[in-house]
């Protein structure tokens, strides 16, 4: 009898110990999960802080050593060898090529999305989607090789038709075409999902009013999906601003600008950061971080602008869903 009681108490104690350990493990892991979440959440802020603090350095220090901030932001010449760092024209260049490329891709993306979601049937639709997904999966270096080998040649030949000479085809136009190709998949994918989310009642309503399916697509469905399409455009534009390796292969790296002529070589924020990385030191190296800060600033500004524009449209009763 005593033994049985002892046994029970012993096993009770054992279970209590196990329970305690399990609870301890649970608490431990829950904290680990929290820590992981915090780390992930902090990264963005840390990136901004650290890159900015490094990027500010060239502008601090004694008057002779430091880089002129005002000229950095507004200047129109970039000669690393002479210590001239005017990024102003580079910012404008980046905006020109990215926005033009994006505007070139947007109508194509919308039209493709209409084809995929509303006109093409089953297998064809899947096939077309696969094309878009494959384009999205190609890494930027591979786009760079293609751009350097084919797009530049195309531009050069086109320029010859007009009697214009180019720097081997490296030009604004080449970058615009490249960025259009690279942003197209993002815009198409978002347009497709936006269109697919439109309820069928709108379709029925339009057809019952005597509109053709095509009219329905372009007059009702695409406008109804404009929120997703706008998001796709913004995302694509963000990627265009930040595209580095492929662009730097064909930009040409102009020393002054901005490059309004599409056949002129150009220089973007990212190409400035990357070019000549092998043989660089001192200010030339440090200034790239400053350029990075400007790049982040441009992207954030654009996102805020689009956000504000969306808000305004919503207020007027325009955008819904």
């Amino acid at each position, binding site marked *: 009898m005593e033994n049985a009681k002892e046994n029970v108490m012993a096993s009770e104690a054992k279970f209590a110990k196990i329970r305690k350990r399990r609870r301890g*493990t*649970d608490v431990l*892991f*829950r904290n680990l*999960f*929290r*820590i*992981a*979440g*915090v780390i*992930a*959440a*902090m*990264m*963005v*802020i*840390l*990136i901004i802080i*650290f*890159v900015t*603090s*490094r990027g500010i350095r060239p502008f601090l220090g004694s008057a002779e050593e430091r880089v002129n901030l005002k000229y950095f932001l507004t200047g129109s010449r970039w000669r690393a060898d002479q210590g001239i760092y005017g990024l102003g024209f580079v910012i404008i260049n980046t905006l020109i090529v990215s926005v033009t490329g994006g505007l070139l891709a947007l109508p194509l993306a919308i*039209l*493709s999305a*209409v*084809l995929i979601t509303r*006109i093409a049937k089953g297998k064809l639709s899947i096939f*077309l989607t696969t*094309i878009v*997904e*494959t384009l999205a*999966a*190609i*890494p*930027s*270096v*591979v786009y760079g*090789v*293609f751009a*350097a080998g*084919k797009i530049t040649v195309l531009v050069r030949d086109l320029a010859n038709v007009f009697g214009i000479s180019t720097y081997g085809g490296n030009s604004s136009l080449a970058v615009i075409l490249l960025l259009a*190709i690279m942003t197209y998949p993002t815009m*198409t994918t978002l347009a497709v999902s936006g269109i697919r989310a439109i309820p069928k009642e709108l379709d029925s309503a339009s057809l019952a009013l005597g509109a*053709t399916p*095509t009219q329905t*697509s372009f007059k009702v469905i695409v406008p109804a999906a404009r929120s997703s399409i706008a998001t796709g455009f913004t995302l694509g534009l*963000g990627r265009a601003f*930040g*595209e*580095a*390796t492929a662009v730097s*292969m064909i930009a040409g790296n102009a020393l002054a600008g901005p490059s309004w002529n599409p056949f002129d070589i150009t220089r973007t924020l*990212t190409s400035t950061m990357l070019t000549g*990385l*092998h043989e660089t030191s001192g200010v030339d190296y440090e200034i790239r971080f400053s350029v*990075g800060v400007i*790049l*982040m600033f441009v*992207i954030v500004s654009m*996102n805020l602008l689009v956000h504000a524009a969306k808000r305004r449209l919503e207020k007027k009763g325009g955008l819904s869903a």
Partner: protein
Amino acid sequence: MTRIRKIKDIFMQSLTWVASGISAWVLVAILVFIFSNGWKLLDRSVLFGDYHAKNIVSGFSDEHNADLTFTPPDTLEDGDVVSTRFGFAVRDEIDKEKNHVHTLTWVDDHSPLLNGKITTAGPTQGTPAPFKAGMNINKFVYLDNSGEAITVGRLKQQSPQEWIPLMDGNAKQITEFHGKEPGGGMRGSLMATLILIGLSLLFSVPIGIFAAIYLYAIAKQNRLTTFVRSSIELLAGVPSIIFSMMGITLIFPIIKLFGASGQSIILGSLTMAVLLLPVLIRQTEEALRSVPSSYAQASLALGATQTETLFRVVLPSARNGIFSACLLAVSRIIGESAALVFTMGTAIQDSPKIGSSATSLAVQIYVLMGGENPNFELSSAISIVILILVLALNLTVKVVSALSDKKGKA
């Protein structure tokens, strides 16, 4: 319907076909360009060979002078000059830098050239250094019948048609041959990429999964959680070159404390790990949410702790989705270039080490394409490898998720 309306209708429809047609045409153009430029280069020596050319001095310390006659195979082309005495064929070619090289196009299985060993004094003396097809010959040194050492070859401004018969006729014994392994391979970058993948996943997968678990199971529906989610979404929108800069400014000082210096694979991996977080977290959370909540509730109702439920029930059920997430991460690593240029370096290495700089496959392409003479052929060849890997990974992810969907529906 009026005629005008019908015409407009058909016009708009055809525009959609044109748009998709353009995208298909661009894709085909890209693939055709890459494959036509790189396919012919893809053989073992390129896939698994060193990038950097190596000068080799090989020779014999003993007599290797069998009086053999070798017959060349029929596969030789015009311009190949055959040494019937020593069993090899050489052709005069022009390399990328517009220089003449004498390339070995055939070496017989019994040719004495295969038995060469390194003769220069030092730690490698005596190790086998066979001369195989694909290598370049710079010069031969042989002893002629009178015991004199004669040098022949390209370095003596002789064409193969001149020096091979000379050697065949007069050589009693070859003592040395100098040549070059032309390099142009991607093995170094291939290995660096593998190491990079391993290390990046090592750091990012645990943090990514744990952070996803945090969002799925622990975070409450409040402002803080929204903030956390937004931060992670923002991270996804950061351009990869900025990650490069983060690597240098944030991570490098940390690993410096552990003794690392300069650009290195480890620095690149840690940078990639941060870059991969949004992808991993998003996919993993989706996978976790696709597990029916009834499983978790049943587990908790049976007295299991939340952690036990996660590790024993939820995560195993979500393993397909998590696996897909990892495959997507690998695909991203293979294709990434901008984030690694600053952090991992641009020096192509034949034997990459974790602590020193190296190039991944993608970065090697970037390096090859820079400068005055971009190497389209090798870049395209590497691109083919990258495309095959990336597309295979993406396809696998699709298949895995299609299979999981079937299971879920059944």
